[in-house]
């Protein structure tokens, strides 16, 4: 079946790229490595475009099985590929943005000695990510799910000589594993109650009522736990800011555009299940809103350009989950797309900046860069506008849709969302103003080296800037009477929603839009006043006080986790080893031995060596025996 092989190639090519680069990369020229790796992502992109066009033109989703993974009793899991509307969008996103980031990396990583390893990891990541979105069952998704975790681990800890980076990588992996536990157990529920893990069969069974609401709640909450890990939601978000230890393109690809949105994908994929459990949705909405607000608040006081972006990512992911929580699955995906464009753009832009200043990431030591690197400046500005929700940039559309949906559900959620996006606008422009305006505040040495990035790096910036600008038009609010292309395309997947939500009245909608835009502009204005007009530059970390200090220190969540989880675990481990294992359990064993030896000492002391004693003992024994018989016989 050649057509299947073609789709198989989507997955296979990145894997092949991984193997070639991993095994032979050292011997190949750097350019070859980069080009090969990029091609291995680009070709799938082209293939998926054809699938996309098929689907757009009303073609059937592609679904086929490769082979049986395992079958035990009536439980069976196959390796299956499913390319439907949802997958196709995700694959396009992954391969498309992935390709751009590969290209960007060719230039960005030029100097690194482990160039080929880097690209092999990237390809590996793409491979797993594609498995994640193309599998036709949960276990397949889980393969990708864990696989991207692995790739993320490898890439965060790419510079493994630095132990801080390693810690960050380890933290990311372990936190993800906490989520994976939820995913795994959630799968058990699905497997047991629906008898399968294949999406279509699961949905079929769910529609037939395979799960009572309580079960659906348990299952969905467990799956959501998985999603919080991968998508950095409260309470499992702390790894993402630390994950910025990896090379910047990695942050763009994995920790902004693709991997972290896997949680959204998963919830979307399981929308039927989640719709069966309204309580879970409420929890998701609340968690999403809280995450959005919290991360935005932390973002206000960060001075590391990548950290700011990281927190903004967490915050945006929170918004996506807010959308999921209010049942607006396709809206969440819409934001995934736009976010991928502008956040990848921002990260790559920041990478460009970091590249220019020689690796420094602190915005307090930047400034005035717009004249040195205009392309970066413009694209970064576009990204910032998009994330701030300024029309007509893409972020506006998706964010507006989310907020409208939230408003419909619960005004408090909406308010939180608005608050978060206002903060977002503020801190993004704080970054823009501090980085690109004013005078350069770094060292002379750095100043002399400031330069615009090479074309290979600018090309992705430009492409992404275009996407960030125009991407929003695939989902135009209904009040403008244009078709919402995305929603229509995704309609077959969102079986769960059943009845489309009622649209808000036009007036309300206009008011909401106005508030969002107004809020964004106000925030930008404040930032302008603070950082351009007053030329404020944030001081040293130590100088912070009050709320700012708390925000700068991420409200001490890491410390909190350290105190209530990490330390107790370590302490308990020591205790178990030293007290329970060595003293108690082994002590019992050793004491048995010692008691035996002691008994030996006592017993052998009756061997006194004195003949008279021996004879006496024998005589007494004989007396005893005879006495026994006398008593027994009479």
């Amino acid at each position: 079946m050649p057509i299947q092989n073609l789709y198989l190639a989507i997955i296979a090519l990145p894997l092949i790229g991984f193997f070639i680069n991993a095994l032979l990369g050292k011997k190949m020229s750097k350019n070859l490595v980069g080009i090969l790796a990029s091609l291995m992502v680009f070709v799938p992109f082209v293939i998926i475009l054809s699938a996309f066009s098929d689907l757009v033109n009303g073609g059937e989703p592609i679904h086929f099985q490769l082979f049986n993974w395992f079958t035990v009793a009536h439980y069976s899991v196959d390796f299956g590929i499913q390319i439907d509307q949802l997958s196709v969008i995700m694959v396009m996103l992954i391969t498309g943005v992935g390709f751009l980031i590969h290209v960007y990396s060719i230039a960005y990583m030029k100097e690194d000695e482990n160039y080929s390893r880097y690209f092999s990891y990237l390809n590996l990541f793409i491979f797993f990510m594609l498995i994640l979105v193309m599998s036709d069952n949960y276990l397949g998704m889980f393969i990708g799910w864990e696989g991207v975790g692995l790739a993320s681990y490898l890439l965060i800890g790419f510079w493994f000589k630095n132990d801080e980076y390693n810690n960050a990588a380890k933290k990311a992996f372990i936190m993800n594993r906490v989520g994976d536990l939820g995913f795994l157990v959630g799968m058990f529920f699905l497997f047991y109650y629906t008898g399968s893990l294949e999406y279509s069969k699961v949905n079929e069974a769910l529609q037939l009522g395979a799960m009572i609401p309580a079960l659906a709640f348990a299952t969905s909450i467990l799956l959501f736990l998985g999603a919080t890990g991968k998508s950095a939601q409260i309470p499992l978000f702390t790894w993402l800011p630390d994950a910025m230890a990896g090379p910047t393109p990695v942050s763009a690809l994995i920790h902004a555009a693709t991997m972290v949105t896997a949680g959204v994908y998963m919830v979307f994929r399981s929308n039927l299940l989640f719709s069966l459990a309204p309580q879970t949705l409420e929890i998701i909405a609340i968690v999403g809103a809280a995450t959005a607000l919290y991360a935005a608040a932390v973002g206000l006081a960060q001075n590391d350009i990548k950290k700011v972006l990281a927190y903004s990512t967490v915050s945006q992911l929170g918004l996506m989950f807010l959308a999921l929580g209010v049942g607006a699955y396709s809206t969440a995906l819409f934001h995934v797309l736009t976010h991928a464009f502008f956040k990848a753009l921002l990260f790559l832009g920041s990478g460009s900046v970091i590249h220019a200043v020689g690796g420094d990431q602190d915005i307090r030591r930047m400034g005035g860069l717009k004249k040195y690197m205009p392309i970066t400046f413009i694209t970064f500005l576009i990204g910032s506008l998009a994330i701030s929700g300024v029309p007509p940039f893409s972020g506006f559309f998706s964010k507006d849709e989310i907020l409208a949906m939230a408003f419909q559900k619960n005004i408090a959620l909406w308010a939180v969302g608005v608050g978060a996006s206002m903060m977002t606008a503020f801190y993004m422009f704080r970054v823009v103003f501090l980085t690109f305006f004013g005078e350069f505040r770094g060292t002379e040495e750095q100043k002399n080296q400031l330069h615009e990035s090479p074309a290979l790096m600018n090309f992705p910036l430009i492409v992404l800037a275009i996407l960030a600008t125009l991407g929003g038009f695939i989902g135009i609010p209904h009040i403008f009477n244009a078709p919402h292309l995305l929603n229509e395309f995704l309609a077959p997947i969102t079986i769960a929603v059943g009845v489309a939500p009622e649209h808000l009245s036009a007036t309300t909608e206009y008011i909401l839009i106005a508030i969002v835009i107004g809020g964004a502009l106000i925030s930008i204005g404040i930032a302008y006043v603070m950082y351009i007009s007053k030329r404020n530059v944030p001081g040293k970390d130590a100088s912070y006080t009050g709320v700012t200090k708390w925000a700068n220190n991420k409200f001490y969540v890491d410390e909190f986790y350290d105190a209530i989880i990490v330390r107790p675990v370590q302490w308990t481990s020591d205790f178990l080893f030293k007290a329970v294992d060595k003293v108690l359990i082994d002590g019992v064993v050793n004491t048995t031995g010692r008691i035996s030896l002691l008994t030996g000492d006592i017993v052998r002391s009756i061997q006194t060596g004195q003949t008279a004693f021996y004879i006496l003992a024998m005589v007494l024994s004989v007396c005893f025996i005879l006495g026994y018989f006398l008593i027994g016989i009479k």
Partner: protein
Amino acid sequence: MGTIIITTVLGLLGMVMDILNLRRAIVIISSLVLIGLSVFNVVSYWGINASFYSGMIVLDNFTVAFSSLLLLISGLLIFLSNQFFKREEEKISDYVALFVFALVGALLMISFGNLATLFIGIEILSVSLYVLAASNRKSLASNEAGMKYFLMGAFITGFLLLGITLIYGVTGSFDIYEIQNALVLGQSTPLVMIGVVLLVVAMLFKASVAPFHFWAPDVYTGSPTLVTAFMSTVAKVAAFGAMYKLFSIALISKIIEVEPLLVLFVIMTFFIANFSALKQTSVKRILAFSGVSHAGFLLLAIISSNFGSAGNLFYYAAAYAIANVIAFTVVIYVSHVKANDHLDSFKGLLYARPGLAIAMIISLFSLAGIPPLAGFVGKFLVLMATIKAQYTYVAIIAIITSIVSIYYYFKIIISMTHRVEDSTAFVRPPTVYTVITWIGVILLLVLGFVPKYFVGLF
């Protein structure tokens, strides 16, 4: 019967050869004759169930098998005496004669058909062993061992004699079959039981079953090692053979009443012997206590067969005796080159003399009951019979104390595995040591692998 005569003549011949100045040949001729005799014995007397000389000697398969075992083991041990008594060559014929006479006593003990034969057999064996135990005249330990053994042995002879007398008083005969008949018909009055008990006690003493075992560790420790080897193999096997014959024929109707006590003694033996051995530092003494603990198993083999079958007893005895021959051979070698048998003297043996050390390890494994060696099969059979006889708790005690026993057997093994700086003390052992140990090892393996040819013969 021919076997006993030939053995007796062999002993006398040895003394004659001494006169004829053929000392060097005595040892070799004696042991070869004995080993040959063990084969001859089986070939010519197997399947004969008969009594000789007015029932003084009773031959059956059981007797033949035990005789051959005793002959074989004695043959192997006497082989060593050439080396062992090297410094006293002029007395070698005396030693060998004493060994052979002791063997005659042992043979009488298991072929008796009359208590007189048993009594004389026991005394021949004992008297020879008293002398042999004390035979290292300059060693205080040997003196002490000989004296202790003699005192207690003579004392127990009184009990034995009293027991025989009382049985005679009740039954009017010394013939085991007549006693059997008389006792089956008679009641278990105190007079009968006191006779039975005293006989049993005397046999338990010879077999070193607790609480009549006290002599064994001390005497084994003090005696010259070759004598210890002889005592712990030939004497013990003979004692158990005699005990079985006595219990299963003469006392069969009354021994059932002693059975609870015997079980108690078995348990005591396991407990005392195994725990006492734990902290010993002399290898000989460890083996002495091990011998006592195996006496428990041997007695258990007799009890668990309901005094009706000696298959397990023979198998166990053979496994035990052969393993002991190997172990003592190595101990003799080591105490020869190191002048003592302390555990520390064994350090480095594995690296210096791997052949001997491996044989020793195998024999200790067999004693510890680790498959697939004969010792394991023996324990397996005995435990099986024990549980079949509804003595599950005894089996469990046996198992638990066996676990304890592993500790002291392994103390020896571990000692041998120490690496030492200077292993020159371990001079090349005479070939005969190596040959004997490996003959033993092969026997152990054969017994272990194809037990079906040795178990259930009678």
